[in-house]
Structure formats: structure tokens, C-alpha cells
């Protein structure tokens, strides 16, 4: 089963990278760009065949390794 995971910074957490990207876009002449936030996107194949187990395992992976839950949120999508 294919899984897609989005890891994003929690609201209010400073995003230095997002800010730098926003400034860089500005100096390249792209106006009107705001609130740039940069996150991570992970795709993977997981062997579990049923969705509940897969989601369960992915949640544990996010908590244990993939996301830093002090400052990040994660969202898991499973391909049907």
C-alpha cells in the first residue's frame, strides 16, 4: 500500500526556511507572496494489506521518527 505523509510546522512555530524562501521570491520579483511555510513530504510503500493496521503503523512511525511532534504536525494519506 502506498502512503503519503505531510509533516508541517505547528502554527506559531518559527519557520526560518519558509521566511527565507518568501524573501527570495520577493527579490526575484514575485510580488504578493505571503505566509510561506515549508514542510516535508514523505512517500513510502508499506506491506500491511489492511488499512487500519497500516494507519496504525504509520502513526507510530511518525511519532517515533518521522515527525518531531514538539513542533510538527503530521497527516497520513493512504492510497486506496
Amino acid at each position, binding site marked *: 500500500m502506498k502512503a503519503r505523509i505531510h509533516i508541517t510546522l505547528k502554527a506559531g512555530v518559527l519557520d*526560518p*526556511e519558509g521566511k*527565507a*524562501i518568501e524573501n*527570495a521570491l520577493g*527579490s*526575484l520579483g514575485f510580488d504578493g507572496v505571503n505566509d510561506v511555510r*515549508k514542510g516535508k513530504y514523505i512517500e513510502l510503500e508499506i506491506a500491511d494489506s489492511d488499512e487500519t493496521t497500516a494507519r496504525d503503523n504509520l502513526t507510530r512511525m511518525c511519532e517515533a521518527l518521522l515527525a518531531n511532534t514538539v513542533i510538527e504536525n503530521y497527516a497520513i494519506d493512504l492510497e486506496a
Partner: protein
Amino acid sequence: MKSAVIVFPASNCDRDAAVALERISGSKPHMVWHGDSDLPEVDLIVLPGGFSYGDYLRCGAMASQSPIMKEVIKKAKAGTPTLGICNGFQVLTECGLLPGVLMRNAGLHFVCKTVPLSVENTDTVFTSKYGQGEVIDVPIAHHDGNYFADADTLDRVEGEGQVAFRYANDNPNGSARDIAGIVNAKSNVLGLMPHPERVIDQQLGGTDGAPLFAALTEALS
């Protein structure tokens, strides 16, 4: 030899490069702010190491879009010798003056250590004072030095003698075909991950970087 060192926001080896250039060539380089659009008349352009723009997004990506880079690209394409060290190498690949990209080290960690390099091509303005196949010790200090290009590009780069330096022993970062530094097809643009400017006097633990600056000085004065 007249030279220019480009200073990007959060370049941090700009001083080191300037010290090495002055010490070996005898003349102080121009320090050129990335936001300027004019480059003084120089014989050599140096893009120094560091963390331009914090290495955010992709190392060297934002710096490669700096106003001064239009001039750098123009001069480099017209044949002005251009040297990119570490972050400077990343800028050179991001702006297309050199092929390939520098990805995250295979071990994912930042790696700082002195590594042996073999000199693969002595037929450039940068490397003429080394012997073919000579092994030199030069420090590396980077997070993203894992050189990558598709197989065709790698074959071409190797076939045309564009590989200037290879890691001679262990490959410290997973770089394709052990590549540590490459030149462009005209051999006037060199990018390398190791820091020759950090080994120019014996107190620093070696002088293996000095011949690179000496070769440039001799050729360009």
C-alpha cells in the same frame, strides 16, 4: 592576479578565501557583495564556502539567483577562471555553470575531517601544480556534498576529463564515482567540496591547498 570573492548572506569562508588569496598571490581580493550588479575587472572569481541563505531550500539555490550572479555567469562563460569551494560549488551547480547537483550526504550527518584526494586532471589553470594522480590531504566540512548526476552526464564528465579531484580513500558522503570536484568543459570553472584555503600553512596541519592558489597566481599574473 586580481581576484574577487563574492560575499553572500551567511557566506562564512569568505575571509578564509581572501586570506589564502592574499597570502599566496600577494594581492588583496575585492570583496563583492552579492547584491551588487557590477563585478570589478578581475582575473579570478571565487565563490566561497559557507551557508548562503542558511542552506535553506537547497544549498546554493537562493545564492545562485543573487544579482551579482548574472555577471559571474557572463564572465565565467566568457572564460574568466571561476572557483567555487563547498557552498560555492553548490552555487555553481545550481546556476548551471557546472553539471549535476550536490545532495545530502549519504550518512545524513555533517562531516568535518581531512580526507585524501587524488588529483585527476592537472591540465587546468587550478591544478597545474599538482602531479597527475597525486594524493593530497584537504579538509572537508559539509552536509551536502554527495555529488549526483545521471549516468550519461557522469560518463560525459569522466570521458571529457572534467573530474578534477576524487576522494582517494573512503568516500565520505556517497558522492557518485567518488567525485570531489569537477571543471566545466572549458576547464575555466572549478567546483570542489573540500577546502584548499584551510590548508595553506603548516600550522593548520598541512599545505596541500597552497599549490592550487599558487597555480592560479602563476597563470593569471
